[in-house]
Structures are given as C-alpha cells and as structure tokens.
C-alpha cells in the first residue's frame, strides 16, 4: 500500500504562506487548515520559531521534539498546560467553574514527575494492548451496528453521524456511563478542548465554561454514585483504586473527577478526528478504500494502514510545555519560562525521519516511531484503544460500504479553529451498501 496524496503535492508546491515565514502564524485559520508547507518552512528555516502572535516557540523537528519529550523536568507539562489553559480568560473561567461547576479541577495527569507517575500508573493499566484486544468483539459490535443503521440511507455525515457517536459510545461503555447523550458529550469535548486551542473569543469562553460546568456536575454525580456503591466499571476502579503510597493511598475526589474527565474527553475528539480523516481519504481517494478492502482479513496490514494514517494525518497537531531553566534547543537558547508548542504533526512530516513524508506508505519500517501519540512519560494512555477503534472502523466500513464519495466540494471542508488539533468539522458523504 503506497501512494502519493495529491493534496499533499499541491500543498508542497503551492506553499500557502509563501516565503514569508516570519509573517505567518499558526493562529491563522488558513495555515491551520493547510499546515504542511508552513511546517516544512519552519523545519528548514527556523526549527524553533517564535510565533509572536501565539506567544509560543513552535518546535518542528523530529529530533528536537524527542529531546523535549525525553526530558520532562526541563520541559514541564504542568506549567505549559496551565499557561495554555483558557489563556486570556483564565481568571474569569476559573471563577465560573468554581461557582457553577463544583470546583476548578486541575488536570491531575497534566503534571510532572513524581506526582504524574502516581496518577499515570492508575490510568495506564486500563487500556493495555492485551486488554484492548479482548474488547475487539464488543467494539466491532458497536461499530457494525452504527454502520448498519446508516448503510441503506445512502448518505450521512461521516463525522457527526459516525465518528463522533462511535467514539463516545465506546469510551462510555468502558467508563460505565450508560444512558448518555452523545450530542451533549460532544459539546463538552469541544468545550474542554477549546481551552487549549487558543482561538476562543470571550463569548465562546463563556459558552464553553457553561458546558464544562454541566460536564463536571454530571461527572461529580457519577463519581458520588460509585463512592456510595461500586460497580463493575472504570469509574469505580478509579474511585476505589489503592496506590502504593502510604501517605496518599487513594486518589482524592478532585483527582478522580479530573481523571474521569480526561479519559472521557481526551479520547473523543482525537479518535473521532482520526476516523474523520480516514473517511475523507476513502471519499477522495477511492483506490485507498479498494486497497484496504483487499486487506479486511489481514490484521497485520490493517494495523499498518492505521498507523500510517495516524502518521500522515495526526489528529493532535501540537501541545504545550514550559521551559523550567535556560536551555538550548535546536540551536536556540530558550529562557526559563519560555512557552513551547510541540508540533507532533510537523515531526511526522520530517523527511530526516520519514522519507517522502507526504506519501502514504504502510510498509514503512519505522511506522511506529511517529509522534501522533507523543512520546516519553506522557505518551498517550489510550493509544491501544484508539488504534483498535480506527482499525475496526476501517475494516467494517469497507466491508459493508462502497462508492463512498464526498457530498460537498473538498474546498468546503472546514476545520475546527484551534492550534491543538486538526479536525474536520463536518463530512457529508454518499455511499452504497457493498454488493
């Protein structure tokens, strides 16, 4: 499976930011939607580039990202995340959720060692590769059911009617949230993600804060239920988990709420985005769907297809760190307090690491070294679950549907306004049941 994405070629040839790199900024929605030429310019001209409008250094080379990701004390997630969160409105945001949302729950997992290690240990056991393998039949049932319900309609929105409700149904089943309202959960996800997206206006922040209060009040009630009476679900596991630490043998209430929130939200937008990208490729490059159809019974090639999809179109574009002491990175001296945006998406495009980076090549020998899930101690805890969801979706989609086409012009596709992810907002499709 190997091919050139025509869109990629256009992007590389017609650089949307021209030669004027220093004028371009990642806060520009045009750059956000078609970022690859910008990334390339960064890597070749100024690999640790200060984006003045964003107030952050953009780290763009694979090697420099690895340096940062492997040194969590010099490059702090906790400080970087806190600085990014609700930036511009942080005080007002905090006041609102404290008043109406049961409290301001800092993200326990967005922290530094040694504290991070304690939280992380409790989270990572939930989605080991072996556990996720056992979930495959259950995930397949959810996914096939959703596709079956769409199949005879001949048309539908690949993001709103498939990707988003599918990921929500799967994570809710794991957490033990039944009778959930998928649309509400999607609103919550967007509201939480927007806090690190850097693009919200004050009005939007107010609306998002209201949604986050609603989310927190909902989760607080679910956590209280499990405190009173444990069930067979992940929320109960977190509530009652014992940690090997005599001083803090259990998670605090706010740690539980923030961990459940992280698991519910972190995996939704991201996995749904990956599925949106998958369907976009099916719809615009029918030969990819045809090729994948040949592999529906070949687990190895399906896994490779998914991994290369994640490398080529990473859902998470960039997340933040803060420098805790003066340090040199990519030839530049950064002062303590410098705020960085790690461009995972650009690292995946680095020709030093991935030859012909814009071509889809599922036979790459170093497939798994992409940075779409990050690396180091913060490497995504949900990666096995995400891989499984995307694999099952890809397999069941091509198995059941054919003639998948975009129902709008490719230029009409819009992306969420955010520096943190690159997510298709809506994806109207037409398709037919496979004969």
């Amino acid at each position, binding site marked *: 499976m190997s091919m050139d994405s025509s869109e990629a070629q256009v992007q590389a040839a017609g650089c949307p930011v021209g030669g004027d790199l220093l004028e371009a900024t990642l806060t520009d929605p045009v750059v956000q939607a078609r970022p690859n030429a910008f990334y390339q310019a960064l890597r070749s001209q100024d690999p640790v580039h200060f984006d003045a409008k964003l107030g952050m250094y953009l780290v763009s080379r694979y090697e420099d990202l*690895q340096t940062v990701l*492997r040194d969590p004390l010099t490059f702090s997630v906790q400080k970087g995340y806190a600085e990014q969160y609700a930036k511009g409105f942080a005080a007002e945001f905090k006041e609102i959720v404290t008043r109406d949302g049961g409290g301001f729950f800092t993200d326990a997992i967005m922290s530094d060692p040694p504290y991070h290690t304690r939280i*992380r*240990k409790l989270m*990572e*056991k939930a*989605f*080991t*590769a*072996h556990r996720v*393998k056992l979930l495959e039949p259950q995930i397949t049932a959810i996914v096939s059911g959703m596709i079956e319900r769409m199949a005879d309609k001949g048309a539908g929105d690949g993001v709103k009617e498939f990707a988003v409700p599918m990921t929500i149904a799967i994570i809710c089943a794991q957490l033990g949230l039944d009778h959930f309202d998928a649309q509400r959960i999607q609103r919550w996800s967007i509201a939480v993600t927007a806090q690190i997206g850097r693009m919200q206006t004050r009005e939007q922040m107010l609306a998002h804060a209201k949604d986050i209060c609603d989310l927190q009040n909902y989760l607080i009630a679910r956590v209280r239920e499990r405190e009173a009476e444990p069930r067979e679900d992940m929320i109960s596991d977190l509530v009652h988990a014992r940690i090997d630490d005599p001083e803090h043998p259990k998670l605090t209430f706010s740690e539980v709420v923030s961990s459940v929130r992280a698991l519910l939200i972190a995996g939704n937008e991201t996995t749904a985005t990956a599925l949106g990208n998958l369907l976009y490729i099916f719809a615009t490059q029918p030969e990819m769907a045809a090729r994948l159809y040949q592999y529906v019974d070949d*687990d*190895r090639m399906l*896994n*490779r297809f998914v*991994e290369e999809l994640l490398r080529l179109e990473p859902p998470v574009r960039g997340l933040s760190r803060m420098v805790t002491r003066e340090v040199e990175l990519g030839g530049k001296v950064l002062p303590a307090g410098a705020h960085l945006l790690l461009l995972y998406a650009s690292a995946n495009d680095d020709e030093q690491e991935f030859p012909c980076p814009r071509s889809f090549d599922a036979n790459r*020998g*170093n*497939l*798994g*070294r992409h940075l779409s899930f990050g*690396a*180091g*101690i913060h*490497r995504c*805890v949900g*990666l*096995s679950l995400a*891989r499984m969801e995307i694999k099952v979706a890809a397999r069941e989609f091509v198995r059941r549907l054919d003639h998948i086409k975009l129902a709008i012009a490719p230029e009409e596709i819009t992306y969420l306004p955010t520096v943190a992810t690159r997510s298709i907002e809506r994806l109207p499709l037409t398709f037919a049941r496979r004969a």
Partner: protein
Amino acid sequence: MGSLRVTFVQQDGVEKTVADAEAGASLMVVARTNGVEGIFGDCGGCCSCATCHVYVDPQWQERVGPADEVEISTLDMVSDLQRSNSRLSCQILLRPELDGVRVEVAPGE
C-alpha cells in the same frame, strides 16, 4: 530485593549486570530502575509503545520463549529493527529459570 541476575548490553557496548532482580518483575522495569540506557518503557509495560525492545541472547531464547500475537503486532511497528530474537522487555517476567538471562538493547528513538 531479589536474587536473580540479568545482563543488559547497551547500544554503546556497555554491559550492565543487575544481581538482585526480583521474580515477577519485568525486564523493562529492572532495566529502568537500574539506569540501563535505551530502555524507555513509555507505556509503562502495556505492550503498546515498543520503546523497551531487546534482542534476547540466542542461548536464552528458548527459555525466554516467543512473543504472543499482541506483542508481535507491536513489534511490527518497528519492523526495521526487528530480528528473529526480538522481544519487548516489558513482556518478559523474571522467574527462577531466567536467572542469568542476557539481552541486548535494540537501537531506539
């Protein structure tokens, strides 16, 4: 403190021998707690990151045993570095018959 011996050969050729490893511990954890270079163990032993990749000394291969299906698919993500004696060290749990086991750290990130 346990009493099992494990030897890691780093990419730079340096050999690190741990003499007090415990039965039940994974080789990845033993490597990390003893500062073996090149074993990161990003996913904490969840068999999903392949940053704990080792080559088992051929003399020990049979006793260590083969990778299962899930481990094989994670190893396939770094197929450029894969050899017939590749294993993910987080999936190798120490037991008395592995006393003395020897592995080479695979090149990594």
